[in-house]
């Protein structure tokens, strides 16, 4: 009797869900291949590359020398830390030496980019230790190109995955690139108090750069969610998962809008270093959560046409 009641209730529930979404409840399957570790790897890889690129470009413009020196050193270290996480996640480390065998794979391409980026970034750091020369600028430029490709790789790796329609979009790499850039600028704001130059001069310009990055990221995120909401039922289900508090509060509110408000307040009312520091911390955490939420919301393509 009780069993029969439960079965009937389950049937009604399933039919209701079918009616609402036009898809069978059994067809929806969340991906479980990638989790939090990969999100941390993507964050460290993307943000590390972004820190180097932002620092190098600012140093070319002769801006913030004291903090860009830290940035060009810390960037590759973050990328290496991310690569270590990826290494520990590999199932068969004995075959690691073969990982560059197929250049058509984004995993192999990413490995190439990371190796070349770290190599040229450290060369640049060593050569430019005493003073900036033509050689150091060329080395920095090459490292800058590979740092951009490293940021691109973190998005491309997921955007080529056919089984998860939410990821399988060319907007995802853009989203990860700007997420890396705003996290990078946030890191530079965080280290301003440790720089030797008067902090207030540097922080005003960095705040402006950060505001631009956040606005572009909001635009890209908006396009990502908007195109997703008009996608097939699988993407729509993923977007529904993104409406959870971790994304709406952790990524969008605390991770983007509140830091934006803090930075704008600082820009126009401008006193005290507390606001930009607070905003930078929130942005870095938000950038990590963004990747985690997008990985977590990956719903697999249903096998059978629905």
């Amino acid at each position, binding site marked *: 009797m009780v069993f029969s009641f439960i079965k009937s209730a389950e049937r009604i529930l399933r039919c209701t869900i079918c009616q609402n979404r036009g898809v069978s409840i059994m067809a929806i399957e969340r991906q479980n291949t*990638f989790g939090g570790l990969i999100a941390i790897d993507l964050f460290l890889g993307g943000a590390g590359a972004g820190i180097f690129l932002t620092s190098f470009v600012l140093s070319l413009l002769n801006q913030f020398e004291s903090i860009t020196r830290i940035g060009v050193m810390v960037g590759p270290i973050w990328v290496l830390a991310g690569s270590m996480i990826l290494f520990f996640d590999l199932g068969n480390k004995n075959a690691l030496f073969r990982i560059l065998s197929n250049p058509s794979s984004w995993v192999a391409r990413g490995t190439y980019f990371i190796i070349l980026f770290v190599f040229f970034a450290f060369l640049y750091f060593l050569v430019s230790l005493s003073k900036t020369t033509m050689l150091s600028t060329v080395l920095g430029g090459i490292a800058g190109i590979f740092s951009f490709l490293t940021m691109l790789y973190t998005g491309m790796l997921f955007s080529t995955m056919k089984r998860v329609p939410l990821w399988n979009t060319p907007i995802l790499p853009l989203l990860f690139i700007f997420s890396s850039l705003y996290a990078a600028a946030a890191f530079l704001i965080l280290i301003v108090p440790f720089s030797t130059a008067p902090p207030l001069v540097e922080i005003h310009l960095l705040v402006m750069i950060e505001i631009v990055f956040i606005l572009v990221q909001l635009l890209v995120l908006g396009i990502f969610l908007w195109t997703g909401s008009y996608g097939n039922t699988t993407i729509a289900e993923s977007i529904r998962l993104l409406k959870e508090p971790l994304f709406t509060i952790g990524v969008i509110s605390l991770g983007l809008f509140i830091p934006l408000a803090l930075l704008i307040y600082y820009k126009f009312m401008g006193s005290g270093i507390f606001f930009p520091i607070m905003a930078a911390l929130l942005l870095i955490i938000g950038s990590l959560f963004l990747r985690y939420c997008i990985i977590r919301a990956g719903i697999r393509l249903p096998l059978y046409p629905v």
Partner: protein
Amino acid sequence: MKYGMVIDLKKCVGCMACTIACKTTNHTRPGIFWNVVKDLEVGKYPSVRRVFLPTLCMHCEKAPCVEVCPTGASHRREDGIVLIDYEKCVGCKACIENCPYGARYFNGDPEGYFGDQLTANEEIGYEQHKVGVVEKCNFCIDRLEQGKEPACVQTCIGRARCFGNLDDSDSEVSKRIKSKHGFQLHKECGTNPSVYYLPE
């Protein structure tokens, strides 16, 4: 020569005999199914229906798993069979979410069906499976080399499955595809799978 399979959805009764035959032939670990029959409810309310969908590696002509594999462990032979070289597989798992058919499994747990203590059968069977790599159906390549059909085809009680050469227009598989309007899953992915289905 291109090996392929046709599965008649009208004839599949969902008995899962093929799943068991695959398990006993290939000795896959718990949670790993090279061949599995999905029990699906499809359609839109109120026209919802139940479908038994036998799934396995589709041995695609343009296999996304081969493209994404960084080490070249996943490869496609001239006869169309997509294989994984366990020695070359680095276990990065990128192929798992690149396969639109969900045919790939990560073999990450060394435990057997009864925990750490493997049975005598498991000890022998698991020797061919390396922990830390990705696995999938290989069309029972050992059986093919002995001139036999894949275990799932031989065991199917409803004769829903048919295996043969897709390049030969006179083969049973080609005839069934042509006469009964065989279709491929996720044709939009452009993978050209070697496994066809006949409509319910």
